[in-house]
């Protein structure tokens, strides 16, 4: 038995497709980029600090890793938003949780990008 109110959502927000498309596009970018990352790690002759530093300093690897970070965190945020919308029914709590995950993802992405930048410069 459940006691949900019988009401039908007759209003359309006209915005569900935007989130859906963003999720698909970011996933499409992530497929080749994650494959590249795994392949690069797999074929590495050595995993020591010096070699990793050298690998990160290559502009090609630096740019691709930055794209991985940005797209990965963007995709993560979109996914978390969907989970929150699924399981948290209370409107205010839902809005705040989505906002919080957005800021956490932005923050972690910025920290990642700055760290990468410092490693490459250092």
């Amino acid at each position, binding site marked *: *038995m*459940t*006691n*949900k*109110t*019988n*009401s*039908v*959502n*007759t*209003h*359309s*927000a*006209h*915005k*569900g*497709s*935007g*989130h*859906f*498309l963003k999720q*698909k596009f970011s996933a499409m970018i992530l497929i080749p980029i994650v494959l590249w990352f795994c392949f690069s790690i797999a074929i590495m002759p050595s995993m020591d600090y010096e070699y990793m530093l050298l690998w990160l300093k290559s502009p090609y690897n630096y740019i691709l890793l930055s794209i991985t970070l940005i797209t990965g965190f963007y995709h993560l945020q979109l996914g978390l938003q*969907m989970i929150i*919308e*699924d*399981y*948290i*029914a*209370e409107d205010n709590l839902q809005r705040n949780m989505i906002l919080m995950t957005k800021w956490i993802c932005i923050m972690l992405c910025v920290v990642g990008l700055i760290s990468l930048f410092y490693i490459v410069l250092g």
Partner: protein
Amino acid sequence: MAEFKLPKNSTINPGKNYSSSTSGKKRKKFHVYRYNPESGENPQLDTFDLDMDSCGPMILDALLKIKSELDPSLSLRRSCREGICGSCAMNINGRNVLACTTAIDDYAGDIHVYPLPHQPVIKDLVSDLDQFYKQHASVEPWIKSETIPAEDKERTQSVSDREKLDGLYECVMCACCSTSCPSYWWNSDKYLGPAALLAAYRWISDSRDEATQERLDELDDTFKLYRCHTIMNCTNACPKNLNPAKAIANIKKQISTNKLGG
């Protein structure tokens, strides 16, 4: 928050045991969910030990045998007994099925019969489908056309356009699909559910309907449509072998194509 546990007044207690008087060799136990809101008591699971030699082959036959021979107070919906009316939809051994088209011999052990999941229960196996019907009505499942057909003429449709409706119009509104969908369990007040979306797509696909864009615009909503995460329980559960998940994917595809200017 989504409900992961049954409320206290919904916890199922052990119930009574009944046994059919005839002593046939072939017997089968049916554990049936019983709930009467007027009693103020929690639901219970009654056990009916039936003689299969004097019982018809389908689950519905067994339930009707229970009702006529052992406990006339058992409540269930049924009508056509041939999978056309969709009335006898219930959860049998964990799957949503039509009791009239499900054979008893398909199950090796005891049979557990519950009402459709995550719906308010009116009594025993009768669930309250009010919300489900309202959602169906909300997609306006009828033809919308400004064009007036020639006098005494039908609205014609090519054979290939008619074929596009196959697999969409056969829905019997049993609610097996919607009530098997976890997204519908958590958000049935906002998500339309597979059955209503299948009905919506039936009219979106109809060449005679002139409100395709209007219908797609109405469905472009985070909750109405995009709670579907392609879990596919709906397609798995449909007793008519329809594919609501594919219909929902096609609606998303059409909205996306329009958005991208395709």
